[in-house]
Protein backbone atom coordinates (compact mmCIF):
# COMPACT_ATOMS: atom_id res chain seq x y z
CA UNK A 1 0.00 0.00 0.00
CA UNK A 2 2.88 2.30 0.83
CA UNK A 3 4.22 2.14 -2.69
CA UNK A 4 0.87 2.80 -4.30
CA UNK A 5 0.32 5.97 -2.31
CA UNK A 6 3.83 7.20 -2.72
CA UNK A 7 3.92 6.71 -6.45
CA UNK A 8 0.58 8.43 -6.87
CA UNK A 9 1.88 11.54 -5.14
CA UNK A 10 3.26 14.31 -7.31
CA UNK A 11 6.92 15.12 -6.76
CA UNK A 12 7.35 17.46 -3.83
CA UNK A 13 9.62 20.48 -3.88
CA UNK A 14 10.52 19.62 -0.29
CA UNK A 15 12.03 16.23 -1.04
CA UNK A 16 14.93 18.04 -2.56
CA UNK A 17 15.06 21.67 -3.48
CA UNK A 18 14.94 21.80 -7.27
CA UNK A 19 17.81 23.98 -8.32
CA UNK A 20 19.45 24.71 -11.59
CA UNK A 21 23.13 23.85 -11.89
CA UNK A 22 23.93 27.56 -11.72
CA UNK A 23 21.91 27.98 -8.51
CA UNK A 24 23.67 25.04 -6.89
CA UNK A 25 27.03 26.44 -7.87
CA UNK A 26 26.15 29.84 -6.43
CA UNK A 27 25.07 28.20 -3.18
CA UNK A 28 28.27 26.17 -2.95
CA UNK A 29 30.29 29.30 -3.58
CA UNK A 30 28.37 31.16 -0.86
CA UNK A 31 29.13 28.42 1.67
CA UNK A 32 32.80 28.33 0.67
CA UNK A 33 32.94 32.06 1.38
CA UNK A 34 31.32 31.55 4.74
CA UNK A 35 33.74 28.76 5.65
CA UNK A 36 36.70 30.83 4.56
CA UNK A 37 35.50 33.78 6.57
CA UNK A 38 34.90 31.72 9.71
CA UNK A 39 38.30 30.06 9.60
CA UNK A 40 40.25 33.17 8.53
CA UNK A 41 38.75 35.22 11.34
CA UNK A 42 39.41 32.45 13.80
CA UNK A 43 35.73 32.06 14.67
CA UNK A 44 35.80 28.31 13.96
CA UNK A 45 38.68 26.07 12.90
CA UNK A 46 38.55 23.79 9.87
CA UNK A 47 39.45 20.89 12.12
CA UNK A 48 36.40 21.50 14.30
CA UNK A 49 34.13 21.69 11.25
CA UNK A 50 35.48 18.40 9.94
CA UNK A 51 35.08 16.73 13.32
CA UNK A 52 31.43 17.80 13.62
CA UNK A 53 30.61 16.49 10.16
CA UNK A 54 32.30 13.18 10.92
CA UNK A 55 30.35 12.71 14.18
CA UNK A 56 26.99 13.30 12.55
CA UNK A 57 27.78 11.27 9.45
CA UNK A 58 29.36 8.30 11.22
CA UNK A 59 28.60 8.07 14.94
CA UNK A 60 24.95 9.01 15.27
CA UNK A 61 22.00 7.33 13.67
CA UNK A 62 18.91 5.23 14.25
CA UNK A 63 21.02 2.20 15.16
CA UNK A 64 21.48 3.73 18.62
CA UNK A 65 17.72 4.02 19.09
CA UNK A 66 17.25 0.49 17.76
CA UNK A 67 19.56 -0.81 20.49
CA UNK A 68 17.48 1.00 23.11
CA UNK A 69 14.27 -0.51 21.73
CA UNK A 70 15.65 -4.04 21.50
CA UNK A 71 16.95 -3.85 25.05
CA UNK A 72 13.52 -2.75 26.28
CA UNK A 73 11.94 -5.71 24.47
CA UNK A 74 14.20 -8.31 26.06
CA UNK A 75 14.68 -6.78 29.50
CA UNK A 76 11.50 -5.89 31.36
CA UNK A 77 13.34 -4.05 34.14
CA UNK A 78 15.10 -1.92 31.51
CA UNK A 79 11.77 -1.20 29.79
CA UNK A 80 10.38 0.10 33.06
CA UNK A 81 13.44 2.26 33.70
CA UNK A 82 13.19 3.59 30.13
CA UNK A 83 9.55 4.60 30.53
CA UNK A 84 10.20 6.10 33.97
CA UNK A 85 13.38 8.09 33.17
CA UNK A 86 14.35 7.80 29.52
CA UNK A 87 17.36 10.14 29.66
CA UNK A 88 18.98 8.01 32.34
CA UNK A 89 18.06 4.64 30.82
CA UNK A 90 19.35 5.67 27.38
CA UNK A 91 22.58 6.82 28.98
CA UNK A 92 23.03 3.30 30.39
CA UNK A 93 23.64 2.21 26.78
CA UNK A 94 26.09 5.07 26.27
CA UNK A 95 23.88 7.46 24.30
CA UNK A 96 23.24 11.08 25.25
CA UNK A 97 24.28 14.64 24.60
CA UNK A 98 23.07 17.41 22.37
CA UNK A 99 19.34 17.15 21.57
CA UNK A 100 19.05 14.18 23.89
CA UNK A 101 19.50 15.89 27.25
CA UNK A 102 15.83 15.50 28.22
CA UNK A 103 14.30 12.36 26.77
CA UNK A 104 10.82 10.92 27.14
CA UNK A 105 9.96 7.51 25.68
CA UNK A 106 6.35 6.77 24.76
CA UNK A 107 5.19 3.22 24.20
CA UNK A 108 3.05 1.90 21.38
CA UNK A 109 0.67 -0.91 22.28
CA UNK A 110 -2.18 -2.79 20.65
CA UNK A 111 -4.50 0.08 21.58
CA UNK A 112 -2.29 3.20 21.58
CA UNK A 113 -0.19 4.62 18.75
CA UNK A 114 2.24 7.49 19.40
CA UNK A 115 3.71 9.78 16.74
CA UNK A 116 6.48 12.37 17.21
CA UNK A 117 6.69 15.69 15.36
CA UNK A 118 7.92 19.27 15.68
CA UNK A 119 5.44 21.61 14.04
CA UNK A 120 7.50 24.77 14.74
CA UNK A 121 10.93 23.63 13.53
CA UNK A 122 12.66 20.26 13.44
CA UNK A 123 13.30 19.08 17.02
CA UNK A 124 14.41 15.46 17.01
CA UNK A 125 16.37 13.17 19.38
CA UNK A 126 19.79 13.25 17.69
CA UNK A 127 21.72 10.87 20.01
CA UNK A 128 19.30 8.00 19.37
CA UNK A 129 18.03 8.70 15.84
CA UNK A 130 20.74 10.82 14.22
CA UNK A 131 19.76 13.86 12.19
CA UNK A 132 16.13 13.98 11.04
CA UNK A 133 15.16 12.96 7.51
CA UNK A 134 14.15 15.75 5.14
CA UNK A 135 10.45 14.91 5.25
CA UNK A 136 10.40 15.34 9.05
CA UNK A 137 11.89 18.84 8.82
CA UNK A 138 9.70 20.35 6.14
CA UNK A 139 6.19 21.87 6.13
CA UNK A 140 4.15 19.01 4.62
CA UNK A 141 4.67 16.58 7.52
CA UNK A 142 4.80 19.32 10.17
CA UNK A 143 1.52 20.87 9.05
CA UNK A 144 -0.51 17.75 8.44
CA UNK A 145 0.57 15.51 11.31
CA UNK A 146 -1.11 17.91 13.76
CA UNK A 147 -4.53 17.97 12.13
CA UNK A 148 -4.66 14.66 10.22
CA UNK A 149 -2.29 12.13 11.80
CA UNK A 150 -4.24 9.11 10.55
CA UNK A 151 -4.26 10.47 7.01
CA UNK A 152 -0.50 11.01 7.11
CA UNK A 153 0.03 7.44 8.32
CA UNK A 154 -2.16 6.08 5.51
CA UNK A 155 -0.10 7.98 2.95
CA UNK A 156 3.02 6.59 4.60
CA UNK A 157 1.57 3.09 4.27
CA UNK A 158 0.10 2.42 7.73
CA UNK A 159 -3.65 2.16 8.19
CA UNK A 160 -4.62 2.20 11.88
CA UNK A 161 -7.82 0.59 13.09
CA UNK A 162 -10.31 3.24 14.13
CA UNK A 163 -10.40 1.82 17.67
CA UNK A 164 -6.72 2.68 18.25
CA UNK A 165 -6.00 5.85 20.18
CA UNK A 166 -3.58 8.20 18.40
CA UNK A 167 -1.27 10.46 20.40
CA UNK A 168 0.77 13.10 18.58
CA UNK A 169 3.70 14.61 20.50
CA UNK A 170 4.60 18.09 19.24
CA UNK A 171 8.17 18.74 20.48
CA UNK A 172 7.71 22.43 21.26
CA UNK A 173 10.24 22.63 24.14
CA UNK A 174 13.62 21.02 24.93
CA UNK A 175 12.18 17.57 25.64
CA UNK A 176 12.84 15.01 22.91
CA UNK A 177 10.53 12.07 22.31
CA UNK A 178 11.25 8.55 21.14
CA UNK A 179 8.57 5.98 20.34
CA UNK A 180 9.03 2.47 21.73
CA UNK A 181 7.39 0.45 18.96
CA UNK A 182 5.55 -2.82 19.51
CA UNK A 183 7.68 -5.93 19.26
CA UNK A 184 6.49 -7.77 16.15
CA UNK A 185 4.92 -11.23 16.31
CA UNK A 186 7.13 -14.16 15.42
CA UNK A 187 10.28 -12.83 17.11
CA UNK A 188 9.98 -14.85 20.32
CA UNK A 189 13.30 -16.66 19.92
CA UNK A 190 15.22 -13.70 18.54
CA UNK A 191 18.43 -12.46 20.15
CA UNK A 192 18.83 -8.82 21.14
CA UNK A 193 21.09 -8.31 18.10
CA UNK A 194 18.52 -9.84 15.76
CA UNK A 195 15.81 -7.65 17.23
CA UNK A 196 17.97 -4.55 16.87
CA UNK A 197 18.26 -5.21 13.15
CA UNK A 198 14.45 -5.17 12.79
CA UNK A 199 13.91 -1.74 14.33
CA UNK A 200 13.47 1.05 11.79
CA UNK A 201 13.91 4.79 12.17
CA UNK A 202 10.33 5.44 11.10
CA UNK A 203 8.95 3.06 13.75
CA UNK A 204 10.73 5.11 16.42
CA UNK A 205 9.20 8.34 15.05
CA UNK A 206 5.87 6.54 15.08
CA UNK A 207 5.00 6.77 11.39
CA UNK A 208 5.46 3.04 10.80
CA UNK A 209 5.12 -0.29 12.56
CA UNK A 210 7.73 -3.02 12.51
CA UNK A 211 6.73 -5.88 10.25
CA UNK A 212 6.90 -9.46 11.42
CA UNK A 213 9.91 -11.18 9.87
CA UNK A 214 8.69 -13.81 7.44
Amino acid sequence: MAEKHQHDAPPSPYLEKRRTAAETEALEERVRRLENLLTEKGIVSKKTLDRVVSIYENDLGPLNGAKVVARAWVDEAYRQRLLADATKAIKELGFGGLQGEHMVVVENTATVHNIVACTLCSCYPWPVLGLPPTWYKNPPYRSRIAIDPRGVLVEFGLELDDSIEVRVWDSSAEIRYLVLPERPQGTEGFSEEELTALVTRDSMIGVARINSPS
Partner: protein
Amino acid sequence: MNGMHDVGGMGGFTLPVRDPDEPPFKYEWEALVFAANQAFHGPWPVDRRRFAIESMPPDLYLSTSYFGRWLWRFEKLLVEDGLATEEELRNPDGPMSPAADFQPFVRDAVDHTIPPKFRVGDDVLVKNEHPTGHTRVPRYVRGRRGTIHLDHGVYDLPDTVAHGLDPKPQHCYAVIFRASELWGARANPRDWIYVDLWDDYLLADS
Protein backbone atom coordinates in the same frame (compact mmCIF):
# COMPACT_ATOMS: atom_id res chain seq x y z
CA MET B 1 5.83 35.86 16.06
CA ASN B 2 3.15 34.54 13.78
CA GLY B 3 5.71 33.41 11.23
CA MET B 4 5.71 30.95 8.36
CA HIS B 5 7.38 28.38 10.59
CA ASP B 6 4.19 27.83 12.61
CA VAL B 7 2.56 25.45 10.14
CA GLY B 8 0.67 23.03 12.42
CA GLY B 9 -2.80 22.42 10.95
CA MET B 10 -2.22 24.05 7.57
CA GLY B 11 -3.49 22.31 4.45
CA GLY B 12 -2.25 22.21 0.90
CA PHE B 13 1.19 20.65 1.25
CA THR B 14 2.01 17.32 -0.40
CA LEU B 15 3.85 14.70 1.61
CA PRO B 16 7.09 13.64 -0.06
CA VAL B 17 8.27 10.16 -0.89
CA ARG B 18 10.43 8.94 1.98
CA ASP B 19 13.91 7.67 1.28
CA PRO B 20 14.76 5.09 3.98
CA ASP B 21 18.48 5.43 3.25
CA GLU B 22 18.70 9.20 3.11
CA PRO B 23 22.16 10.34 4.26
CA PRO B 24 22.37 13.10 6.90
CA PHE B 25 23.73 15.45 4.24
CA LYS B 26 23.15 15.19 0.50
CA TYR B 27 25.65 17.87 -0.42
CA GLU B 28 28.94 18.96 1.06
CA TRP B 29 27.64 22.51 1.54
CA GLU B 30 24.83 21.19 3.75
CA ALA B 31 27.34 19.42 5.99
CA LEU B 32 29.43 22.59 6.24
CA VAL B 33 26.47 24.77 7.15
CA PHE B 34 25.40 22.27 9.80
CA ALA B 35 28.93 21.98 11.19
CA ALA B 36 29.36 25.75 11.35
CA ASN B 37 26.11 25.98 13.33
CA GLN B 38 27.20 23.27 15.75
CA ALA B 39 30.81 24.39 16.09
CA PHE B 40 29.99 28.03 16.71
CA HIS B 41 27.20 28.72 19.16
CA GLY B 42 28.82 32.02 19.99
CA PRO B 43 26.42 34.36 21.72
CA TRP B 44 23.43 32.56 20.26
CA PRO B 45 21.18 30.54 22.54
CA VAL B 46 19.00 28.05 20.70
CA ASP B 47 15.91 30.24 20.89
CA ARG B 48 17.70 33.20 19.35
CA ARG B 49 18.73 30.93 16.50
CA ARG B 50 15.16 29.70 16.14
CA PHE B 51 13.83 33.26 16.09
CA ALA B 52 16.21 34.16 13.27
CA ILE B 53 14.59 31.51 11.06
CA GLU B 54 11.12 32.52 12.23
CA SER B 55 11.89 36.05 10.99
CA MET B 56 12.36 34.86 7.40
CA PRO B 57 9.80 36.38 5.04
CA PRO B 58 7.18 33.66 4.40
CA ASP B 59 7.82 33.40 0.66
CA LEU B 60 11.55 33.00 1.27
CA TYR B 61 10.98 30.47 4.06
CA LEU B 62 8.90 28.25 1.80
CA SER B 63 11.17 28.50 -1.21
CA THR B 64 14.39 27.80 0.71
CA SER B 65 15.58 24.27 1.53
CA TYR B 66 16.12 23.23 5.15
CA PHE B 67 19.88 23.78 5.28
CA GLY B 68 19.39 26.83 3.08
CA ARG B 69 17.39 28.33 5.95
CA TRP B 70 20.24 27.47 8.32
CA LEU B 71 22.69 29.22 6.02
CA TRP B 72 20.48 32.32 5.85
CA ARG B 73 20.23 32.35 9.64
CA PHE B 74 23.95 31.88 10.21
CA GLU B 75 24.83 34.82 7.95
CA LYS B 76 22.14 36.99 9.53
CA LEU B 77 23.42 36.37 13.08
CA LEU B 78 27.06 36.93 12.09
CA VAL B 79 26.11 40.33 10.68
CA GLU B 80 23.83 41.20 13.62
CA ASP B 81 26.68 40.63 16.06
CA GLY B 82 29.37 42.35 14.03
CA LEU B 83 31.26 39.11 13.40
CA ALA B 84 31.07 39.66 9.65
CA THR B 85 29.72 42.25 7.26
CA GLU B 86 27.38 41.79 4.30
CA GLU B 87 30.24 42.88 2.08
CA GLU B 88 32.56 40.20 3.45
CA LEU B 89 29.93 37.52 2.98
CA ARG B 90 29.35 38.51 -0.64
CA ASN B 91 32.87 39.44 -1.71
CA PRO B 92 35.49 36.96 -0.53
CA ASP B 93 38.33 38.79 -2.27
CA GLY B 94 37.71 42.06 -0.45
CA PRO B 95 39.41 43.13 2.78
CA MET B 96 38.45 41.24 5.92
CA SER B 97 37.90 43.04 9.18
CA PRO B 98 38.76 41.32 12.45
CA ALA B 99 35.76 39.69 14.09
CA ALA B 100 34.15 41.71 16.84
CA ASP B 101 34.66 40.34 20.32
CA PHE B 102 31.94 37.98 21.33
CA GLN B 103 30.89 36.43 24.58
CA PRO B 104 29.78 32.84 24.21
CA PHE B 105 26.28 32.36 25.52
CA VAL B 106 26.59 30.70 28.91
CA ARG B 107 23.63 30.05 31.13
CA ASP B 108 24.17 29.13 34.75
CA ALA B 109 22.25 26.06 35.84
CA VAL B 110 18.61 26.95 36.30
CA ASP B 111 17.11 26.86 39.76
CA HIS B 112 15.25 23.57 39.91
CA THR B 113 13.58 24.44 43.20
CA ILE B 114 11.23 26.94 41.55
CA PRO B 115 7.73 25.69 42.35
CA PRO B 116 5.28 24.72 39.59
CA LYS B 117 2.09 26.73 39.06
CA PHE B 118 0.21 23.60 38.04
CA ARG B 119 -0.05 19.96 39.02
CA VAL B 120 -0.51 16.91 36.83
CA GLY B 121 -4.23 16.61 36.13
CA ASP B 122 -4.94 20.37 36.35
CA ASP B 123 -7.12 21.78 33.56
CA VAL B 124 -5.50 24.73 31.81
CA LEU B 125 -6.36 27.34 29.21
CA VAL B 126 -3.58 28.44 26.85
CA LYS B 127 -3.36 32.23 26.76
CA ASN B 128 -4.43 33.72 23.47
CA GLU B 129 -1.38 35.86 22.88
CA HIS B 130 0.36 36.76 19.64
CA PRO B 131 3.77 38.17 20.56
CA THR B 132 5.91 39.85 17.91
CA GLY B 133 9.02 38.18 19.33
CA HIS B 134 9.93 34.53 19.80
CA THR B 135 7.52 32.11 21.45
CA ARG B 136 7.04 28.35 21.49
CA VAL B 137 3.25 28.30 21.64
CA PRO B 138 1.97 26.96 18.32
CA ARG B 139 -0.96 29.03 17.08
CA TYR B 140 -3.20 25.98 16.98
CA VAL B 141 -3.33 25.70 20.80
CA ARG B 142 -3.79 29.38 21.66
CA GLY B 143 -7.05 29.95 23.50
CA ARG B 144 -7.60 26.17 23.76
CA ARG B 145 -8.25 24.01 26.79
CA GLY B 146 -6.03 21.14 27.83
CA THR B 147 -4.82 19.22 30.87
CA ILE B 148 -1.39 19.00 32.48
CA HIS B 149 -0.14 15.51 31.64
CA LEU B 150 3.48 15.60 32.75
CA ASP B 151 5.68 18.11 34.59
CA HIS B 152 9.06 18.20 32.81
CA GLY B 153 10.69 20.40 35.44
CA VAL B 154 12.23 23.87 35.19
CA TYR B 155 13.42 25.37 31.88
CA ASP B 156 14.09 28.93 30.75
CA LEU B 157 11.12 30.56 29.06
CA PRO B 158 12.12 30.83 25.37
CA ASP B 159 10.39 34.19 24.92
CA THR B 160 12.98 36.17 26.91
CA VAL B 161 16.11 34.12 26.37
CA ALA B 162 15.75 34.48 22.57
CA HIS B 163 16.04 38.26 22.87
CA GLY B 164 18.79 38.51 25.48
CA LEU B 165 16.31 39.55 28.18
CA ASP B 166 16.42 38.32 31.76
CA PRO B 167 15.88 34.56 31.98
CA LYS B 168 12.52 33.46 33.32
CA PRO B 169 13.06 29.89 34.49
CA GLN B 170 9.78 28.11 35.21
CA HIS B 171 8.07 24.76 34.86
CA CYS B 172 7.36 23.31 31.47
CA TYR B 173 4.67 20.65 31.02
CA ALA B 174 3.37 18.23 28.44
CA VAL B 175 -0.18 19.53 28.05
CA ILE B 176 -2.67 17.12 26.51
CA PHE B 177 -5.41 18.38 24.19
CA ARG B 178 -8.32 16.50 22.69
CA ALA B 179 -7.94 16.73 18.93
CA SER B 180 -11.56 17.89 18.75
CA GLU B 181 -10.75 20.86 21.03
CA LEU B 182 -8.23 21.97 18.40
CA TRP B 183 -9.79 20.88 15.12
CA GLY B 184 -13.51 20.62 15.81
CA ALA B 185 -15.73 18.02 14.20
CA ARG B 186 -13.04 16.98 11.74
CA ALA B 187 -11.00 15.35 14.49
CA ASN B 188 -11.17 11.68 15.38
CA PRO B 189 -12.57 11.40 18.94
CA ARG B 190 -9.74 9.00 19.83
CA ASP B 191 -6.95 11.41 18.85
CA TRP B 192 -4.89 13.50 21.28
CA ILE B 193 -2.12 16.04 20.88
CA TYR B 194 0.58 16.74 23.45
CA VAL B 195 2.33 20.12 23.37
CA ASP B 196 5.12 21.19 25.75
CA LEU B 197 4.17 24.53 27.31
CA TRP B 198 5.62 26.76 30.03
CA ASP B 199 3.85 28.24 33.09
CA ASP B 200 3.69 31.73 31.53
CA TYR B 201 1.71 30.38 28.56
CA LEU B 202 -1.04 28.93 30.74
CA LEU B 203 -4.00 29.99 32.88
CA ALA B 204 -5.90 27.83 35.34
CA ASP B 205 -9.16 26.64 33.78
CA SER B 206 -11.49 26.07 36.68
